[in-house]
């Protein structure tokens, strides 16, 4: 373990870390937005859910590396364009989260839904202001899984040139330098733990009524 | 027969769930354990098939100490029905029912035949034998649960709040059918419930448990209602126990007098007239002051009672009758007399006094 190297290269490490954070965070945020829209639609128009699930299932089945490569062909971009990774990860996150959003909405007690309807809520308002907040614990549980998965998958991008902390793995492997790899692993782990804690904190803040929280 | 001899259960954390309970659940009878939450009734039941082990004392099933019998063997010889049925969701109704016989290695064909019989006996159709629990209603699932417990024809059955998880209407019909079933099979049953009305309706003997796990009283339902052992039992038994007790007192012996009957078209009598048809079957009451008996002036009968009905049925008939007279019918449904409230009350008073002096001389 070469501590000296770490000190000397802290700028590079920091740069890669920040790149990694961007590459993980953006797909999750956009993926969530897309999943919320699609999820609400699928929950409301139930007939659309099964076909959506099939599409989502296929997307999720494709290995990440493969998706990074196949996507450019579909989108018409260059294979080595970093945008591919962002889009691919967004698709992954969205695919996983759609299922979670629908599950979360399904878990809202029917009594609540009926009461809201009876009180005079319009459908969309009801879904957004009543059902979604109640679905938060389920959705956050899914978010936690997706976020951690994303953080892992960003590294894979290093195999085709852009991968945040993943570059420490490829670089370290090429020059047989274990320290680099360990730094990458530790930072990935810390990032994952931090993100997870952040999400739990956000969940607590946004659902003060749910002391018993929906943790696995 | 099931016997508890000074049975106690103390859990590792110190809670005493069952405190020195001794009772006998007679052969072929339905004994109900009833009480509020935490009174030890469920734990007591669980000690019979050793889902929980006794801390002190003994439990004997048909004379054998349960702690001396191999647990698994013991359980295969005792029918067990629980709340929410606990049916195996991955097995069909038929496969659920044949569970214990299969565990015992019975002949497959015989087992299936018996299973079909039982399924019908509990009020389901044979075509439902191939369904899965998820396809049945709560009430139907409970019936399958009972059939499953009866499959190996065990002499003894344990039932833990079997009807509590269904709605009142379904519960009532399940109870009625269960009583009918018990008439046919005559098992020794230990039945747990928190509902005193259910206990009184179903039990040949009712054992009331109090918080802390001790047995407050064990008696027949009628005696329980007549003479609760202490304040706790009295309040647990609930309001109207005097009235409810009447269902355990017979009505024959009450002095009925002949009914003021008349046919349609006849002259009305002074006072209330009971209109009857050609066969002396009652049609309704005619208020005083009318000339003749016509259909349109009749008021509804309310309810009637027969010689074999309880005093409660007779009192009910008096209370709802517009004339203040209860109409008694014979086996063919023909009017055989009326009785008023005062006569009923006198009869009840007299029989209470006899019972009371009878008790004192014991």
């Amino acid at each position, binding site marked *: 373990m070469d501590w000296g190297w770490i000190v000397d290269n802290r700028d590079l490490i920091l740069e890669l870390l920040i790149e990694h954070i961007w590459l993980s965070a953006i797909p999750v945020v956009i993926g969530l937005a897309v999943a919320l829209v699609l999820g609400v639609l699928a929950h409301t128009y139930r007939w659309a859910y099964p076909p959506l699930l099939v599409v989502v299932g296929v997307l999720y089945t494709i290995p990440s590396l493969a998706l990074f490569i196949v996507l450019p062909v579909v989108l018409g971009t260059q294979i080595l364009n970093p945008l591919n990774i962002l889009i691919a990860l967004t698709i992954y996150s969205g695919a996983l989260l759609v299922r979670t959003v629908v599950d979360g909405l399904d878990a809202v007690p029917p009594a609540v839904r009926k009461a809201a309807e009876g009180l005079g809520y319009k459908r969309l308002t009801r879904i957004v202001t009543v059902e979604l907040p109640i679905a938060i614990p389920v959705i956050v549980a899914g978010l936690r899984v997706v976020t951690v998965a994303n953080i892992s998958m960003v590294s*894979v991008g290093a195999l085709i040139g852009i991968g945040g902390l993943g570059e420490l793995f490829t670089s370290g492997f090429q020059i047989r330098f274990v320290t680099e790899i*360990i730094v990458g692993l530790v930072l990935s782990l810390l990032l994952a733990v931090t993100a997870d804690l952040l999400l739990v904190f956000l969940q607590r803040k946004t659902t003060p009524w749910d002391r018993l929280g929906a943790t696995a | 027969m099931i016997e508890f001899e000074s049975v106690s259960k103390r859990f590792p954390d110190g809670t005493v769930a069952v405190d020195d309970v001794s009772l006998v659940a007679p052969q072929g009878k339905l004994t109900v354990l009833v009480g509020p939450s935490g009174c030890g009734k469920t734990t007591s039941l669980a000690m019979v098939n050793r889902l929980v082990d006794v801390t002190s004392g003994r439990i004997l099933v048909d004379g054998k100490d349960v702690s001396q019998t191999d647990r698994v063997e013991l359980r295969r010889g005792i029918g067990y029905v629980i709340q929410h049925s*606990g049916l195996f969701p991955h097995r069909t109704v038929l496969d659920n029912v044949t569970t214990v016989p299969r565990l015992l290695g019975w002949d497959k064909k015989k087992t299936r035949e018996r299973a079909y019989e039982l399924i019908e006996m509990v009020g389901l159709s044979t075509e439902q034998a191939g369904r899965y629990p998820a396809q049945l209603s709560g009430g139907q699932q409970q019936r399958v649960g009972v059939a499953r417990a009866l499959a190996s024809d065990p002499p003894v059955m344990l039932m833990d709040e079997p009807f509590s998880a269904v709605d009142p209407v379904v519960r009532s019909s399940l109870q009625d059918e269960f009583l009918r079933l018990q008439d046919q099979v005559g098992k020794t049953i230990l039945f747990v419930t928190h509902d005193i009305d259910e206990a009184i309706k179903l039990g040949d003997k009712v054992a009331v448990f109090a918080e802390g796990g001790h047995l407050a009283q064990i008696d027949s339902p009628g005696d329980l209602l007549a003479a609760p052992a202490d304040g706790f039992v009295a309040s647990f038994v609930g309001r109207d126990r005097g009235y409810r007790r009447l269902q355990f007192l017979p009505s024959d012996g009450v002095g009925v007098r002949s009914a003021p009957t008349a046919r349609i078209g006849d002259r009305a009598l002074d006072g209330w007239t009971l209109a009857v048809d050609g066969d002396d079957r009652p049609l309704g009451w005619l208020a005083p002051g009318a000339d003749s008996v016509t259909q349109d002036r009749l008021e509804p009968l309310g309810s009637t009672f027969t010689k074999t009905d309880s005093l409660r049925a007779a009192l009910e008939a008096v209370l709802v009758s517009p004339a203040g007279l209860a109409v008694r019918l014979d086996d063919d449904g023909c009017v055989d007399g009326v009785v008023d409230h005062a006569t009923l009350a006198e009869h009840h008073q007299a029989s209470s006094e006899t019972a009371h002096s009878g008790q004192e001389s014991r």
Partner: protein
Amino acid sequence: MIGDVWAYLTAAGSWQGSNGFAVRIFEHLQYVAGALLVAFLIAFPLGLLIGHTNKGVTVAVNAVNASRSLPSLGLLTLVVLVSGLGRAPVLVALTVLAIPPILNATYAGVRGVDKGAVNAARGMGMTELQVLWQVELPVALPLVWSGIRSATLQTVATATIAAYVALGGLGRYVIDGFAVREFDEMLAGAALVSLLAIVLDLVLALATRVSVSPGLREPRKQRRTSPLKRLAPGNQSTATAAG
């Protein structure tokens, strides 16, 4: 681009030889099958035990969470650097990574079995082993299968990445193709591994359908309850947990 790739994929020559598609697909399948088999043999009994006895849950949960947080590329490169180039350490890594999803799904599945049914089974006189085998396992099966599917997809993906640390399989096309900027080759590899993943998933989905009792399927058709009962709270069917 697509036209070129199609030509590449369908050319007979591409399928033959030691770097042909046939060989690589087979290699990939071998890695995946091997890793899954061993992982299953370890994780399944362990999961059954943890689920049935309810002991060791915290340890299992933490182990599962930890493994999810570690980037597979990092693990693979570390393993190879530490134990030298060669297939064995990589295969071990693949196996270890496949354990958590199967373990998780198995114990969650067993724990999720209706406690009433388990209690009734015990009360009726089943031995502990019979309870596990005849009641808990069949009811947990849907979840167990979802764990296997999850592990399969993960292993296919990781095996692809493992080509970077000198494993064979379909990842070779991606890694080697990238090295010489041969995009057709990369794309061919990506397309093939995607297809492989989809086919495997479908096979497992079929296996699930065939082996799971119809009584466990949702939604519940042919329910004979009154419509009013169906509207009562708590009577709606819950969403399936199986992936």
